[in-house]
Structure formats: C-alpha cells, structure tokens
C-alpha cells in the first residue's frame, strides 16, 4: 500500500466530529491494545475494531472507512470500557463513529426494518406469529406494551420524529 501523507489528512475535523457524536475519549487512546485483546468484534474477525478504528480516526481517516460495517457488529458489551487504562470509553467512540455513519445513512439495509418497526409499533422486533406462541403458553395474544397502545405509539413517533433521526427520512 502506498504511504499516506498524514499532513494532508483532515485530523482535527474528524476528531472533532467523533467528539461531537459522543466519543470524547478519542484523544485519550494511546494504542495500548487492551480493548482489542478482549473485543468480540476483533475475535470474530471483523476488520475494523477498537484500537484500529481509533487510530484511523485519530489520523483523519473518514471517507475511507465510512462504509465499513465492523462498527455495527459491536455488541456494546463494554468490556473495553471496563478495562481501558486511559478511561477513553472505547465503546462510546465506536458508537460515535456509528452515529457518524448513520448520519450519512452508511448502514446496512437490514438495519432499516427494526427502525421502521420501532417507529410503527414501538418495538424494534415484532412478528405476527408471536400471537400464536403467546396463546400456546397461556398468555393473552398481545402484551400490554405499546404494541396494543395507540397513545404509546403516538408518543414514540413524536420522540423519533422530533429528533435528528426524523430528518433522515427513514420513517
């Protein structure tokens, strides 16, 4: 691979964007690799996890990695946050990057279904077949959650529509 000319990278801007999206720890990372050593994303073989993602961001990479789906494999297990010696809260940086990706709709198409379902029913996961299963074990076909509650659905729609997510045109 050809060498990267770091002086031409947009480091300040990318770092600021990460901070603005909730990843204030990005400047603290010293590449000790502790997060990577226990990260399920790394262990499962995804290419862009923890320390490597942070280094990319620290050096101003953004366009180059915007489409990478690794960050969406983050389980939010927070083991990294628990052990990070710099208290950089790696999980929060990963999610900040996710939010940057989401802001440009650089997300997999499979992510849209739960979002639309959340907007419509208040539940990210729902299937009609559940009614049968519930009756089978002696429960009423629908629970008392928002699924059967129009007012609750209105409320969740108000919250979603009035935030930045409403502007993405997903719903």
């Amino acid at each position, binding site marked *: 691979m050809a060498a990267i000319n770091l002086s031409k990278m947009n480091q300040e801007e990318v770092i600021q964007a990460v901070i603005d999206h*909730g990843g204030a720890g990005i400047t603290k990372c010293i590449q000790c690799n502790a997060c990577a050593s226990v990260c*399920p*994303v790394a*262990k*499962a*073989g*995804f290419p862009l996890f923890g320390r490597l993602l942070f280094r990319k961001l620290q050096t101003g990479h953004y366009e180059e990695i915007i489409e990478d*789906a690794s960050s*969406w*494999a*983050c*389980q*939010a*297990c*927070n*083991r990294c*946050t*628990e052990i990070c010696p710099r208290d950089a809260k790696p*999980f929060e940086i990963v*999610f900040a990057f996710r*939010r940057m990706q*989401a*802001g440009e709709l650089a997300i*997999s198409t*499979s*992510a849209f279904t*739960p*979002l639309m379902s*959340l907007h419509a029913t*208040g539940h*990210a*996961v*729902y*299937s009609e077949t*559940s009614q049968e*299963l*519930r009756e*089978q*074990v*002696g*429960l009423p076909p629908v*629970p*008392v*959650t*928002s*699924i059967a*509650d129009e*007012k*609750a659905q*209105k*409320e*969740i729609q*108000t*919250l*979603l529509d*009035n*935030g*930045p*997510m409403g502007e*993405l045109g997903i719903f």
Partner: protein
Amino acid sequence: MEKCGIYLGCNIPFKAPDIEQSFNKVFPKLGVELVDLEGATCCPAWGTAPSFDIDTWLAISGRNINIAEEKDVDIMTGCNSCFGVMSEAKHMIDHDAAKRKKLNENLALIDRKFKGNSDVFHVSHVLYDRIGLEKIKESLKYTLKELKIAVQPGCHILWPTEVMEVKEKNSFFPTILKELCEVLEADVPHYSALNACCGMGAMRSTDQARSFGLFKTKLVNMKEEIDPDMIVTTCSSCYLQFDGAQKNLRESGEIDFEIPVFYYTQLLALCMGFDPKNVAAISATPRDQIIQKIQSEARLIKQEA
C-alpha cells in the same frame, strides 16, 4: 408484597413468551408482585436510536423508566440488552445535567417529566439481591442434584460496572448466576470462556457467519471443558443464540452434540413444579428429555416435618 415493574422488551414477549410466563409464575411465589408497564416500548435496542442520536436514545429509555416512575415502582427486565441500554441511559441522565435538561425538553413534547425515582434492575439482580437465595431454596419442589450446568451470564449485566445498582464481586469472574443455579443444588463448574460473548445481537444481524464462528468457539469450549447437561442464562438474547444458533450449527454439521438451553426462571419454575407447557414450551434445541428428568419423582424434595 414487594412490587416491581416488569419490563418485557421485545424478544421475550414476541419470541419466547414462555420466559414471560415463567416470570408470572416465579415472582409471585417468591413474594414479588409484578406490575405491568402499560405502553412500554423497545428499550431502544443498541442498533436503533443509540446508534443514531444520544438524546433520542435517552428520550425513549427515559420514557420507559418514566412509566415505572408513575407507578412508583422500580424496573425489572429479563433481557441483558434492555438492561444495558436503560442502565447506561439512566446513568447518563443522572450524571449529566445538560443531557437531563434536554431529555425533559423532549419528554415535554409527550407531556412527561423524568423524575429519577425508579432504578433499573435485572431479573437476576432481583432474584439474588432483593429476594435472596434462602427464599428461593424454600420454594423448590425438585432438586437438580448431580446435574451439571454451564452458566451464561451475558455481557451487559457485567459491564460497565459503573452504571449498575447491583454489582458482581468481580465482573470478569461473575458468580451471581452460578450461585442462583447452585441453590437449585446443581453442579456449576467454571469454564474458561465464561465471560465470552455469544455473538447474538448486532453482530449476528451484521454478519451471521462471523457471529456463529464466535458462538461456536464458546459452545465447544463449554462442551470440552465441562460437558454440561444444560446451559442456563439470564439473558434473553443469549438464550435465543444458544437455542437457535446451536440448531444451525448442528444442521450445517459443525457440531455433533446438543445441549438443552434454559432461561434461568424457566428452570426455576420447573424446579418449583410449574407446568412446562407454560414455562418451557418453545425451543429449537429439544429439551423435553431433560425437563422430564428434572420433574421426576426421584428428584422430589422431601419436606421436613
């Protein structure tokens, strides 16, 4: 009777309602009245609002917690993801005045106000910390003597410890679920990948093959090190992965064994003598045999006079 708001989430009521039913059976018997949280929504799942905008996340979590506040109860959830999402949200709201202000601006749109009176608990925390092992022991009808359990506490109940009301003594070597199983008189040996991730959730929807790969490592590790009679978890996501993905692996010929999987309250309900048709009826990995074994005559606990 102590009261607790039961927050169902999505997976439990729609994919594994027998877990929901096990809550309904187990908790009243242990002296906890479950209070419905009408109109509760998704927590919201990590892949939804938390991946887009923190304030929207806090608004939705804050709304769910607010439903409990209005009924003057704490929240109990059986899903680790819901627990993690809402605990972190609550921690942020409690410690960041600006975020809290924004939250209440958002909640004002739907005529709600976050007060901060209700705490977020996990089912296993309520069982372990508020009910206690002693009371569970008194409620049992069947013993699990000489049965070996591999426990799967799951991730979000362990980390970050900062946000939790009830904490493990050492979150990297958790013992709460182990103790909850041991009170059923089962054998719960340590295995090395105890705190490893199961691969469910965001990872599975992003890349199923890699998710299964991670899962298989863990499952095989369990099998090889301790060869358990069953796997017991207190996370509904882990439950679905262990139950469902195990089937996938078997069908694709990657493993040649099967280990029945229970959500802890299902197992507890069985030990209390409840009907498996209600509390342990839906699974991809068969468990009829082990259920029969558990509720057999030989395992009846003799009541002392």
